[in-house]
């Protein structure tokens, strides 16, 4: 059994084991060992795979003869359909069941009727697969480790929810397995199968606590993703019957011969990817996913699910370069980047802000993929890696803060640096990783900007510059809230589960490490992807003195907190050199109260600025969705109508 089969099957085995163990006080210990062990095994195997592929020992295509696995895939698809049908009717949401039938039955028919093209490899491994596997395996693994401790605390705080944590942990592993399957599949039908598993899995995870709100939101996620699945299904049918192609790599080869029907397939696949990546107008499902326990959001937002969409887009990026489909994808992506970052400004719920920010960042990645130049693909891949690590770190931190203080509102994080210094420090790293200058995201933005200008996409450049401005506004506000120092406050007793720290610290270290090592990530991981994808030697995207200047900036940024530690060792706490803050009334002495004009002590509350009247979600979400939906519909009609 090869490493590929192992990576796909092992998470499913772990999931089954976790589910069968059930719940109960006695089980917790064993379960912890199993989850940690399996996560470490997954991490070790993706690294092993990466080393083998990068050393040139394992790459290319596998599994040409696959009669028996094909039956498994068909059976699996049938099972998913039955599952969705059951849930759809059980909760009186028949539309989900109907969408599932539309998406599944034609594919089953294709397989049975023999129209399906066979005889080509079903799996493929190249450098892009490896990068994605590293992201899924390592980030996903840490999230699973975090989840064991978290879910225990979660049920401790929410005693009214039925305890189904065995099922929850099992689902997380199923998710990882499905993601690996999706990444390795070259065959479109197989990819579609794993694609549908992730859709159904996210539906089940979002509805975890079975509140009416979670059930509504989970069905929202389900129908949007199944709709995308229908697009995928149509792409498979068209590719198999009209083009005689069943593999992604085949489509890739056709690109040079530019067959007219190819663009239909590419457009349909792009449509599916846009729903999965929660681009406006489909961003509703990702925002709704917030009701689920934190590990779910962390997994959906960073390592899996939404990344599946952008992964597919990057795969078809060279086919989209300079076509109408490319224009459609870049327009939606650029618009999403800008609009979602505006909505994030007007959000005070920490997790919801992170959701808007995920949508926004994915918009940037989608736009990069749509441009389809080597430089923009470089930027997209870089963004995926950095976004996955920073965003998962942020989610895990917000979840831990919520478990500790009972609130995930940014307003309540005022003075977190005093109340929970360790957590605040890690969060600062996470936020800086998301938007500040020398860190990865900005490096990638630099390349993205360059490629947008070179490809002459004026709209995209404008979306990018305005979106960057609003992005720094909302992150800056949050960072400021955390950094507010209130005198004479005490640190809270840190009750964060040790297992949670075991995931948070490594991820924080990873953010900083990756920023320092980004020249190596670029030259050893991403550059080969470009060479494979564009079949030429692509000149280094970033190089020369720029790297030097960026590293100089990074070392300056890192030296500031180190200097802070050194300085604070020498002068401890409040000295005579310290003063109270200016209150525009007499400071009552604790920086929290002031004396008003009657001489009474008055408490002080400082709120952040959200501009809800101007750019609140209630105000601009609907119009934005209308705009994006009309762009999507018009372009799809033009492209598909034009090609038929």
């Amino acid at each position, binding site marked *: 059994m090869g490493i590929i089969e192992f990576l796909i099957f092992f998470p499913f085995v772990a999931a089954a084991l976790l589910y069968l163990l059930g719940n109960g006080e006695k089980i917790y210990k064993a379960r912890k060992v199993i989850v940690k062990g399996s996560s470490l095994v997954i991490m070790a195997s993706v690294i092993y795979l990466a080393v083998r592929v990068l050393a040139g020992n394992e790459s290319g295509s596998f599994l040409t003869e696959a009669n028996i696995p094909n039956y498994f895939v068909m059976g699996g698809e049938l099972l998913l359909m039955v599952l969705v049908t059951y849930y759809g009717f059980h909760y009186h949401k028949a539309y989900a069941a109907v969408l599932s039938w539309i998406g599944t039955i034609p594919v089953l028919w294709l397989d049975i009727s023999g129209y399906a093209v066979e005889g080509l490899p079903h799996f493929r491994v190249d450098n892009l697969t490896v990068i994605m596997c590293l992201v899924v395996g390592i980030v996903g693994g840490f999230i699973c480790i975090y989840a064991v401790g978290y879910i225990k605390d979660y049920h401790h705080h929410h005693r009214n929810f039925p305890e189904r944590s065995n099922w929850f942990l099992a689902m997380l592993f199923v998710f990882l397995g499905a993601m690996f399957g999706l990444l390795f599949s070259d065959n479109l039908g197989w990819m579609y199968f794993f694609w549908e598993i992730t859709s159904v899995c996210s539906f089940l995870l979002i509805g975890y606590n079975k509140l009416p709100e979670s059930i509504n939101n989970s069905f929202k996620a389900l129908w949007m993703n199944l709709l995308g699945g229908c697009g995928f299904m149509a792409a498979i049918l068209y590719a198999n019957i009209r083009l005689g192609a069943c593999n992604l790599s085949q489509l890739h080869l056709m690109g040079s011969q530019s067959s007219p029907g190819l663009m239909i397939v590419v457009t349909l696949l792009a449509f599916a990817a846009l729903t999965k990546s929660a681009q406006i107008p489909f961003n509703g499902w990702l925002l709704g996913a917030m009701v689920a326990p934190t590990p779910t959001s962390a997994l959906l937002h960073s390592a899996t699910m939404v990344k599946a969409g952008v992964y597919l887009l990057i795969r078809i990026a060279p086919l989209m370069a300079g076509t109408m489909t490319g224009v459609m994808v870049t327009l939606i992506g650029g618009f999403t980047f800008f609009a979602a970052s505006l909505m994030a400004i007007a959000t005070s719920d920490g997790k919801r802000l992170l959701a808007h920010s995920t949508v926004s960042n994915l918009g940037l990645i989608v736009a990069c993929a749509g441009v389809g130049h080597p430089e923009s693909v470089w930027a997209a891949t870089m963004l995926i890696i950095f976004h996955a690590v920073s965003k998962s770190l942020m989610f895990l931190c917000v979840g831990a803060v919520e478990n500790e203080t009972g609130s995930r509102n940014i307003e309540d994080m005022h003075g977190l640096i005093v109340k929970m210094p360790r957590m605040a420090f890690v969060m600062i790293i996470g936020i800086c990783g998301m938007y500040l200058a020398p860190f990865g995201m900005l490096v990638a933005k630099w390349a993205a900007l360059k490629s947008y200008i070179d490809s002459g996409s004026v709209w995209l450049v404008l979306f990018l510059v305005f979106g960057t401005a609003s992005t720094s506004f909302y992150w800056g506000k949050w960072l400021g809230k955390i950094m507010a120092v209130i005198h004479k406050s005490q640190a809270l007793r840190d009750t964060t589960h040790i297992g949670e720290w075991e995931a948070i610290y490594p991820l924080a270290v990873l953010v900083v490490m990756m920023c320092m090592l980004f020249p190596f990530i670029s030259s050893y991981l991403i550059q080969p992807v470009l060479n494979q994808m564009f079949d030429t030697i692509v000149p280094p995207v970033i190089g020369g003195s720029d790297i030097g200047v960026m590293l100089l900036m990074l070392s300056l940024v890192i030296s*500031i907190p180190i200097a802070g530690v050194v300085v604070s060792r020498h002068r401890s706490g409040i000295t005579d050199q310290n003063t109270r803050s*200016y209150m525009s009334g007499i400071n009552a002495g604790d920086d929290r109260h002031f004396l008003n004009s009657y001489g009474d002590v008055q408490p002080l509350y*400082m709120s952040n600025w959200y501009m809800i009247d101007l750019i609140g979600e209630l105000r601009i979400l609907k119009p934005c969705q209308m705009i994006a939906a009309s762009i999507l519909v018009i372009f799809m009609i033009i492209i598909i109508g034009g090609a038929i």
Partner: protein
Amino acid sequence: MRILLGFLMILVAPFAGAILSGIDRFCSARMQRRVGPPILQPFYDFYKFTQKKAYIVNGLQWLLVWGHFLFVVLSIWIIYSGEDFLLAIFSLTLSEMMLCLAAYSASAPYSNMSAQRELLQMACTEPMLLLTAIGFYLNSHSFMVSDIVSCSTPAILRAPGMFAGLLVILPIELRKSPFDVSSSHHAHQEMVKGVTTDISGRTMALVELTEWFEIFLMCTFVGLFFAYDNSLTGYLIGIAVALAVMLVMTLTDNVFPRVKWERMLAITWSTTFIAAGGNLLVLTLLQA
């Protein structure tokens, strides 16, 4: 050689910035029919600040003010050693972000409100600063300042829209009316010294010093539009225009009242969009 120039300019910049600031105060006073301070007044102020005890609200603030200073210096260094212009802008943004955070860390009402206004000001300027970089790129096909100054045509000919947009956001960067929303040189708005309310003594001296660097940096941005072929004429024109622009800024400061933040956002973003965006569109169409 180029790197040495970068270090040399780090030494020159504060003096030039301080004198520009002195000239600004002098001219401003004359426009208001006052005698005004001597041109060297900023140096005297600075000296006085350094003589004072550094009363700091918390240690974090002190560090962040240092960060604010260091990244503006880095930005100057990047430009004068001919490195990537875009990175200079990133460094400038980082530095301004640090000042905001310094204000936030005081956890005090005036500082807090102006920190948020400062963030909004950054959001107003950032698109235009990036588009300035893009204007240079479209002119010389490189973000490297060494290539920008040796391009055969000065950027102003191909990117006048970017130049106009830059002039509109310049009052924000220089803390001048009509856009001195977060902090001002004069006590004519409710935030007065805004972000620096809780900064005093020697720490304040550092903020003043940083401001001189910033003034010099803004002059550099303006001057870069006129540099071509690495020729002396180009540089001289650039310096002359930068000085003229500074004078215009002093005049604007005196004739305009401060606007509300909504107006500021609307004015800056719309001019950026129309002038710089339009310029970008034209250039892209011409090159295609």
